[in-house]
């Protein structure tokens, strides 16, 4: 086990997979100098500019070319810089990558990894701060990964590169410097297996990406008050670990979903609806979602902070669920 940052964990995953498989290559803007956040630092030196390839500012072509290159036997890692910019390539991702295998009757597969960093990033405002993971979970054919720890950033990215399906891989920009233990060796994290962040009997808190850390902080506070939260990190939104969530809520009888993204039509709604459908009889309180209001992200810090889901808010919501007298 070594302590590694989230950004370095991803860099290691790319390097290790590129050493393992000569058909893996990465393409995107500014990769030659290491990527906009430094996720590819040093990789061009090792693998050359053909395999760590700079690209024109041309998101549509970066993604479309990756689809063509994947259909003809290579395994591209596509760098979109910000998930916001990937919107310039939505046709290529949603109409082409996600559907090619199906609409061509299984004649082809599209093994691409689309890295789309998400999340509020201080004063980056409305076009560099979105969390749009729910959009992609809605699209048949796509896998959606949202790692919250360095270990998962590495293990899930390795899984994504090996996967024959197109994977939307959403790292959180605020997590780049986060350090954590990363297992030694060739460790791959399976998609669709949630991580238990901490165990508790009173309330289930489901989250993913950076909001996991907010939920964990809240759980520590709650624990001091005698309320034990079962905190689940989904790790991937498609597939998602429905079984782990249902098992937890069967025990606690209470569900709180915590997400950074806009709450309306977010993935929390899917989790909440699934639990409500399956466990109506055992719920001790109505399911509850916490997320951002349906407004764009502001530039000014106080306005930006206004939409942020805080640990205090999570603790308050959980407290409310637990103390609510229900039936």
């Amino acid at each position, binding site marked *: 086990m070594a302590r590694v940052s989230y950004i370095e964990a991803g860099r290691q995953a790319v390097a290790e997979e590129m050493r393992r498989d000569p058909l893996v290559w990465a393409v995107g803007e500014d990769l030659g100098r290491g990527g906009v956040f430094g996720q590819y630092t040093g990789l061009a030196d090792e693998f050359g500019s053909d395999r760590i390839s700079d690209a024109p500012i041309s998101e549509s*072509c970066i993604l479309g070319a990756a689809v*063509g290159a994947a259909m003809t036997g*290579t395994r591209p890692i596509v760098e979109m810089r910000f998930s916001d910019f990937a919107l310039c390539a939505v046709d*290529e991702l949603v109409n*082409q990558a996600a559907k090619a295998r199906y609409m061509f009757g299984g*004649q082809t597969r599209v093994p691409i990894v689309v890295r789309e960093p998400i999340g509020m990033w201080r004063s980056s405002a409305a076009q560099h701060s979105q969390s749009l993971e729910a959009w992609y979970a809605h699209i048949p054919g796509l896998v959606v990964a949202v790692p919250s720890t360095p270990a998962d950033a590495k293990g899930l990215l390795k899984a994504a590169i090996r996967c024959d399906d197109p994977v939307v891989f959403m790292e959180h920009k605020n997590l780049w410097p986060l350090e954590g233990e990363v297992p030694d060796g060739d460790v791959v994290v399976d998609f669709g297996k949630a991580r238990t962040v901490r165990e508790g009997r009173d309330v289930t808190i489901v989250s993913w990406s950076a909001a996991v850390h907010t939920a964990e902080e809240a759980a520590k506070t709650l624990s001091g008050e005698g309320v034990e939260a079962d905190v689940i990190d989904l790790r991937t939104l498609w597939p998602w670990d429905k079984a782990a969530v249902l098992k937890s809520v069967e025990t606690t009888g209470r569900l709180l979903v915590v997400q950074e993204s806009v709450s309306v039509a977010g993935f929390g709604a899917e989790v909440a609806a699934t639990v409500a459908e399956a466990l109506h009889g055992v719920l001790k309180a109505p399911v509850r979602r916490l997320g951002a209001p349906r407004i764009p992200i502001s530039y000014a810090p106080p306005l930006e902070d206004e939409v942020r889901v805080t640990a205090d808010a999570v603790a308050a919501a959980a407290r409310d669920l637990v103390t609510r007298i229900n039936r």
Partner: protein
Amino acid sequence: MPAGQSTRASNLNIERLKAQFGEMCRIREFERAAITASTEKLVLGAIHPSIGQEAVAVGVCGNLKRDDIILSTHRGHGHTMAKGADALAMMRELFGRAGGTSGGKGGSMHIADFSVGMLGANGVVAANINIAAGAAHAIKLKGEDKVVVCFFGDGAINRGPFLEGLNWAGVFKLPIVFVCEDNGFAATTRTHAMTAGGGPAARAESIGIKAEIVDGNDVVAVDEIARSLIEEARRGTPRFLLANTYRLTGHTSADPAPYRAEEEVQERWLNDPIETVRNALVRAGVAPDELDAMHRAAEAEMTQAYETAKATEWPETALAFADVQDIGDPREEAF
């Protein structure tokens, strides 16, 4: 210009030209059968015939090897057949039946046969251009001796992927030939009314990709220029071919095309590429009876394909759940 005057009678390779004539007849008769089936509601959804444009598909694809790659548009039957796809499997695909090229999941607009290097027709105009650039990129990365031909219509030049894909091919020096089939219409609108500047070839040249312009209704001319462009592209110089042609039907088989005068269409039928090549062959001494027999054989083949497709069973409904994805497969209860 009357039919048959535009191909040069000298230096004709008669056997090659006869094969091209036969292939053009097969494409024509395939689409005629498909239009009939569409009218009869046996083929559902939209089909986009390429009647009148067969010389481009045949002239270009005749210079490709089986391993070479093409990508096509929503008007892709001709390209697919010319690349060597099985006509019956294609017809079954149009009928949505088992044994179709895409198992009945794609239909006409997503016709594809990866076994012959046909990587798909695309329902989104210009979307195939970026994908084609990527296929050529992979060829270069793997050091393969292959080339990509990307077909698109004149309407595609007004979408971003046209600019982005051509730029990409130029930047990375990819083995690709972009073939713009200019039939004058972007769906039902005259393209020139919606296009600023000098048109497809001028735009390609502005990106530094040398463009050639050819009479797309003259299969000999297309064959000749395509051969040289494909060889240049194979060596890593992306090239562009503007093939001027005309769509003798409407945008879809259900489009009576009232936006153009009947006289215009009648005049264009005089430049039918199949009649043109037939006349050239007759002038070169081929017996008309032989050519008529070839055309009738194509017609019989496609009538048979129509009948067989009509009698073919639907795909098993369980297949609706297949080929979505491996991870999070919708057939798995766990998800």
